[in-house]
């Protein structure tokens, strides 16, 4: 091989590696990305059982039922729609009725209920997941305060705690 050929071979090798990476990324996106929905959207969208989605909203007051063992059922609501959710495992510390929550999982074909395999609630007494907050704001259920001094309760954590504050439960 001449030097030029060698160089071409190296460049081709590099390019093909990048190509593999791009294909891999595209494939992974098609496989493992979960879309975010609120209960009200589900009426409009047609989601097949087994498709992984993220479901967010408020945990309806009085809906949390501890079932047998570690299975818990509750209702996620956004004021217009309600979705029953079951989850097996330990809920995050800050999971409470009336609090915002994001669950990830899929609808069950038989029961038509949502079976979550992870439940997220943030470690902050005022936590509202961003997606949920945005939507509630849009629908006027909730108004965002102006960044005044009353923000006291927002600036409490930092990134220094990079892995600091979080509360998720994954099965």
């Amino acid at each position, binding site marked *: 091989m001449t030097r030029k050929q060698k160089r071409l071979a190296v460049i081709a090798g590099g390019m093909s590696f990048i190509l593999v990476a791009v294909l891999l990324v595209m494939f992974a996106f098609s496989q493992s990305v979960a879309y975010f929905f609120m209960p009200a959207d589900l009426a409009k969208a047609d989601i097949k059982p087994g498709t992984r989605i993220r479901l967010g909203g*408020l945990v309806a*007051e009085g809906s949390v039922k501890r079932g047998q063992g570690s299975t818990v059922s509750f209702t996620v*609501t956004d*004021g217009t729609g309600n979705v029953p959710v079951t989850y097996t495992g330990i809920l995050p510390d800050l999971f409470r*009725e*009336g*609090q*915002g929550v994001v669950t990830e999982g899929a609808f069950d074909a038989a029961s038509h209920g949502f079976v979550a395999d992870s439940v997220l609630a943030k470690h902050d*007494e*005022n*936590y*509202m997941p961003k997606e949920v*907050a945005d939507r*509630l704001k849009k*629908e*006027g*259920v*909730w*108004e*965002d*305060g*102006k960044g*005044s001094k*009353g*923000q*006291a*309760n*927002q600036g409490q954590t930092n990134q220094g705690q990079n892995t600091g504050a979080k509360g998720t439960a994954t099965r």
Partner: protein
Amino acid sequence: MVLWIILAALTAAVAAILILPFARATKAASADRAGEVAVYRDQLAELDRDRAQGLINAEEAEYARAEIGRRLLAAAGAGEAGETAAPKTRKHGLATAAVTLMPPVVGLCLYLALGNPGLPDQPLEARLANPGNNVALLVAKAERHLAENPNDGAGWDLLAPIYFRSMRLGDAELAYRNAIRILGPNPVRLAGLGETLVASNDGIVTEDARAAFEQAMKLDPDNPRSRFYVGLGFEQAGRAAEARAQFETIAKASPPDAPWMQLVNQHIARNGGTVVSGKGTAQALGNPSQADMAAAENMSQGDRQAMVRGMVDSLAERLKQDPNNLEGWVRLVRSYAVLGDKPKAEEALKSGLKQFPSSGELVALANEMGLAVEGVAQ
């Protein structure tokens, strides 16, 4: 004043240090690439070591030596060329002016806009040592004292009603219980405990509360406050006759123009008794219309509402002064909603959300109570 002197000194020091390089005699620009040459010399030395240890073969070493040598020559050559340029002495008028003016000007302008030069430091210890009339500080001081001496009954006794007035009901209950445990029961403490329990149950006289009031009544049969609550408890339990007996006892024992007579008479009436008509019972009191209306509209809820109302108003007042109390806001919104005062509830919700913009608890509460937030239909 001291502050300004220190700030001025700081500014002057900074400016002076920054001026220093200009004040020094300008030394010749150093041989620019001496460092570079040293690096390449070291690389050559390393090459020799590697060669000696047999880590690389002779041919490779020669190539590398040639390469490093080229770099070395280039660096050394350029360095000499650079050195031939004679050091020039320069005037630094503009630069020194900038260095002298920048710290005081930027410092002062920005600091005056941002700082609070008049506000002294306020370490908590020092403030606690000299609390003055600040109730919150006095409470904090008492709390610290009690954390160290949890058996100081008098302290608990003092703190309990303050807690109650500031709607820290959990703390109030604990304080009353501690005071009773250490100093023994007395009518005031027992009635206070009872009232705390009633308040934390939204006006319901629970078993616990009734027990406290009954014990207080036993110790001091003439205390109308305890007796009233005992009566109220009977009334809420639907035992009208027993309730009426209690209320009538109060009415008999009290002077006819006592401020509580109107309320007591309402209760007697509600529990099927006839009011002992005194001299202008109802009119003698300040502003009965609201209570009257409430009583007329909804007899069973009336006095509970009136009582809650008073508490709620005092809570609202407190929150206005110290708005940073999420629990308080939640309680206030809920109370107004329970009282059926929707405009006030919404107003409280608005103020609460302003304070705690991301409180899920308040939003959830609003949903639950069917409240709209500031002009936006749900």
